[in-house]
């Protein structure tokens, strides 16, 4: 699979999970075109997986968007659900779902994985730009909020029940 098609799978997974679980509607975007990164405080959600393949995933999203995620997941107004705990828990939950769906799409439904609990890290803008420059993220926008996600996998054995790799 090429880097581009891997990014496509990640992007499609992120967009579908956000639509289905949080009822928001992302659009594919271009990181270089007029995204107002200065307007937001960003968080980084990380998660590792082992099993048929080993690797890790990262998602970067504005903290403000996490509050919207929490409100949508909990079916509440943003004022009611606006604690950092529920906001960050919601971001972790969404990324957990994204990772599960992504791994099934990549390796089929016979593949076995164990996922670590997602972790949330608050990051500053310099770290955001460093990540943008050094790694290969899929990128989309939900309204004005930029969302980035990537998965890195170690090259390992091809399992006998590997899926179609779509």
């Amino acid at each position, binding site marked *: 699979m090429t880097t581009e098609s891997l990014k496509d799978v990640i992007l499609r997974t992120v967009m579908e*999970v956000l639509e*289905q*679980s949080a009822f928001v509607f992302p659009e594919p975007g271009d990181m270089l075109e007029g995204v107002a990164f200065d307007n937001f405080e960003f968080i980084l959600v990380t998660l590792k997986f082992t099993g048929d393949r080993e690797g890790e995933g990262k998602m970067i999203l504005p903290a403000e968007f996490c509050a919207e995620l*929490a409100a949508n*997941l*909990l*079916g509440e107004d943003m004022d009611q659900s606006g604690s950092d*705990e*529920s906001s960050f*828990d*919601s971001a*972790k*939950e969404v990324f*957990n*779902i994204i*990772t*599960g*769906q992504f*791994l*099934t799409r990549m390796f089929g*439904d*016979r*593949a*076995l*994985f*164990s*996922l670590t*609990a997602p972790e949330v890290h608050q990051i500053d803008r310099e770290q955001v730009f460093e990540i943008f420059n050094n790694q290969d993220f899929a990128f989309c926008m939900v309204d004005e909020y930029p969302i980035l996600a990537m998965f890195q996998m170690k090259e390992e054995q091809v399992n006998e*029940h590997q899926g179609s790799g779509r």
Partner: protein
Amino acid sequence: MSFNVLIVDDSKTIRAIIAKTLKLAKLDIGEIYEAGDGKEGLECLKTKHVDVVLSDLNMPVMTGLEMVAAMAREGLIEKIPVVVVSTDGSTARIEELKQQGVREYIRKPFTPESIGAVIEGVLGVRKA
């Protein structure tokens, strides 16, 4: 007749999401109890009347599978069905869970309709 549900997940937010979804499923639910890990779940089962358990797998202290094994040892798994709610979509994992006594499996993301259908199937109940 209403039935009681125990939700076992280490995230308070996820427990709230599942509870909200259960309510939206229009099932005839009595009490919804919550536990933060398998150990707390077992303690709840000893003191409350629970008709069905919805459980995560990966939790600190005691995992969902460890809780299922303990329920089997105590003869509870036949009486109180356990439904695992997880992001893992592996059919091999689902088969493994069912062999260990898990009655059903709900993959995230779930909807009120999907969670309602599973609960109805497990308990043989109809919507309220």
